[in-house]
């Protein structure tokens, strides 16, 4: 399941001297959709404002013009009908990509995800399935207040029947989205909106996918495993860099997939380093990283030289003015690492 180092280092994925391009994370999203629509007429894209407007973040800009209103269309302002209609389309043989404008708005569609998306394959004994993708901008850091900044991925990881992913680089964003669209299973695809334009990186010109369930080592190290996903990843790398200046060797892991997640990669790393610091910006209580911590203590207990630490958001609705204070930045991550190292 675990990818080799060569596979996940950005810009090092190409063989035979193939050309790469540097693009932003949001361009990666657009490209992934366009390429999949190009090669599979079953793929349709819809949601609020995705058509002429191209989405509020412009993730779908130009796609309606290119593929027509039949394949790229605006839906009524209704998350329940966006998610629910995607189920019905998928059951009838299409490959819908449904955009929810902000992850914070999924609420009205939650019952559809819980009752229909996640269950229909199981409860019909495999007679019907819903291979669909729900894409949505997620997380904070854009001064959005609590209705434009939440990180609800843990809810969906708790809901057997859907897969949950969150990329942090253009390479992964494109590869994971293509994998999600081709998947026979419903995939919740969370897009870290503060990295939409902040994350730039190389992608190959050839077609590729990133396997759902595979994490990646962003930086190798031997003293401590720093594990995260999504919008916090640049902060993990910054923290690792700062610690490196102090002579600490930090291994940075990007989970990329939250469910299923790459347990072998994490366990292997922790067995090597003996310490783990888990980072996400979602509220701490019932945060998915609690599951990661549990598995580490269950399966790598003998390797641990310090308790597993968690850096998370707070158990409060996401605040507007205190945006930057709320988020676990590099300083908070470094402090947790130091505490763990000194245990």
């Amino acid at each position, binding site marked *: *399941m675990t990818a080799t180092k060569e596979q996940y280092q950005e810009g090092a994925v190409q063989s035979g001297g193939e050309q790469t391009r540097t693009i932003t994370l949001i361009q990666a999203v657009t490209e992934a959709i366009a390429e999949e629509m190009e090669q599979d007429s079953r793929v*349709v894209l819809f949601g609020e404002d995705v058509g002429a407007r191209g989405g509020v973040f412009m993730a779908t800009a130009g796609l309606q013009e290119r593929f027509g209103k*039949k394949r790229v269309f605006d*839906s*009524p302002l*209704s998350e*329940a*009908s966006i*998610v*629910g*209609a*995607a*189920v*019905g*389309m*998928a*059951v*009838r*043989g*299409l490959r*819908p990509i449904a955009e929810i404008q902000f992850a914070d708005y999924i609420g*009205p569609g939650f*019952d*559809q995800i*819980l*009752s*229909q998306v996640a*269950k*229909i*394959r*199981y*409860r*019909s*004994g*495999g*007679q*019907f*399935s819903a*291979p669909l993708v729900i894409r949505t901008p997620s997380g904070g850091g854009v001064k959005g207040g609590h209705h434009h900044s939440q990180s609800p991925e843990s809810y969906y990881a708790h809901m*057997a*029947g859907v*897969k949950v992913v969150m990329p942090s680089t253009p390479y992964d964003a494109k590869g994971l989205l293509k994998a999600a669209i081709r*998947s*026979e*299973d419903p995939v919740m695809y969370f897009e870290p909106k503060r990295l939409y334009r902040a994350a730039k990186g190389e992608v190959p010109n050839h077609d590729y996918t990133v396997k759902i*369930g595979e994490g990646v080592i962003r930086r190798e190290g031997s003293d401590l495993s720093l594990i995260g996903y999504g919008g916090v990843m640049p902060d993990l790398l910054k923290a690792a860099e700062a610690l490196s200046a102090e002579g600490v060797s930090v291994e940075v892991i990007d989970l990329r997939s939250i469910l*299923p997640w790459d*347990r072998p990669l994490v366990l292997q790393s922790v067995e090597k380093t003996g310490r783990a610091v888990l980072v996400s910006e979602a509220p701490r209580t019932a945060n998915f990283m609690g599951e990661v911590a549990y598995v580490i203590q269950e399966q790598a207990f003998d390797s641990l030289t310090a308790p597993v630490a968690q850096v998370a958001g707070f158990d409060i609705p996401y605040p507007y003015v205190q945006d930057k204070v709320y988020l676990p930045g590099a300083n908070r991550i470094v402090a947790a690492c130091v505490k763990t190292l000194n245990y």
Partner: protein
Amino acid sequence: MIEPFTTQPIRYVDPDGTPTQALPEKYTPELLRDLHAQMLRAREFDRKLITLLRQGRSTFYAQASGMEATQIGLARSLRAGHDWVWPYYRDHVLGMALGIPVFELLSQYLGTNSDTSRGRQMPHHFASKRFNFASVSSSIASQVPPAAGTAIAQKYLGTDEITVCTFGDGATSEGDWHAGVNMAAVNKAPCLFVCENNQWAISMHSRDQMSSENVAIKARAYGIPGFYVDGNDIIAVMEVCTHAAEWVRAGHGAALVECLTYRVGSHSNADADAEKFYRTRDEVNEWLGRDPIARVEALLERLGHPVTPEERTGIIEATYREVDEAVLKAEATGEPDWRIMFEDVYSDLPDHLREQEAFLRAEQTGGAQ
């Protein structure tokens, strides 16, 4: 031409069997006897399954007695196995009328190895891919947005199929209902919404469920036609549903049919005695007087083609035999093995489920660590 938005339910035959208007030619005595036989079979199916429940062979049943004309009349407007159905949980009669074998229904009801849902659903929540009969969810109205989606896909794919979505009157209070109907309406998707208004959502009467004069009138707000039908008059149901289905099939968009009917039994076996808690014997008696089966019998009598007691008994006995045989055949297939419990969550078996399956295997085979 059948007009939408009538203030009184559209009716062709009064409860005493008197036609209220000239019946279309197709309603020959042969067809009427066929409809009668199907309704009687459904009624006795309910009776037989409640007996099975009392014998402890299952745990849940939601009878449709009193609603046979609505479900069978609707089925007659569809092309079985071609059109799609997103049903609600009381639609076994609709399923039977579309041709789903009693054996399949019983297999699901009993949770045997022959159950197409593989024992994952509580009794009465069946699915049949062969009949494009999507899986029943208990979550009220959650089938409505998916039905809109299936219809949108049918339009996208350029098929001549339509999608039918059924629900009770209670479902119309849910956000999903409004979201789904609106979604189908704005997309001009070939979706026929059918409200089987049996007037009670467990203990909540439809007059307390909504303040509009009926469900059909709500269609106006979504810009689609709404038909209000006497759901205990099978001819009216057939005529209106066929008319609406053809209209939908012709590419005009979605339509809504409300069939005003009544469930004479309780909501389910878990609902104890309805008359003790939330409705009166007088009300039940009044609706028993509008019974859909008795109505066709009275009509046939009037037309000079009465159903004889022997014929009635024959249908009832054949139904019981059919159910008994299906039960034995289904039970002979045994219970689904625990091993399949982890299948169909995803298209593949992720590592974490593989491990959980291994744990259970060890436990079940006596080798747990």
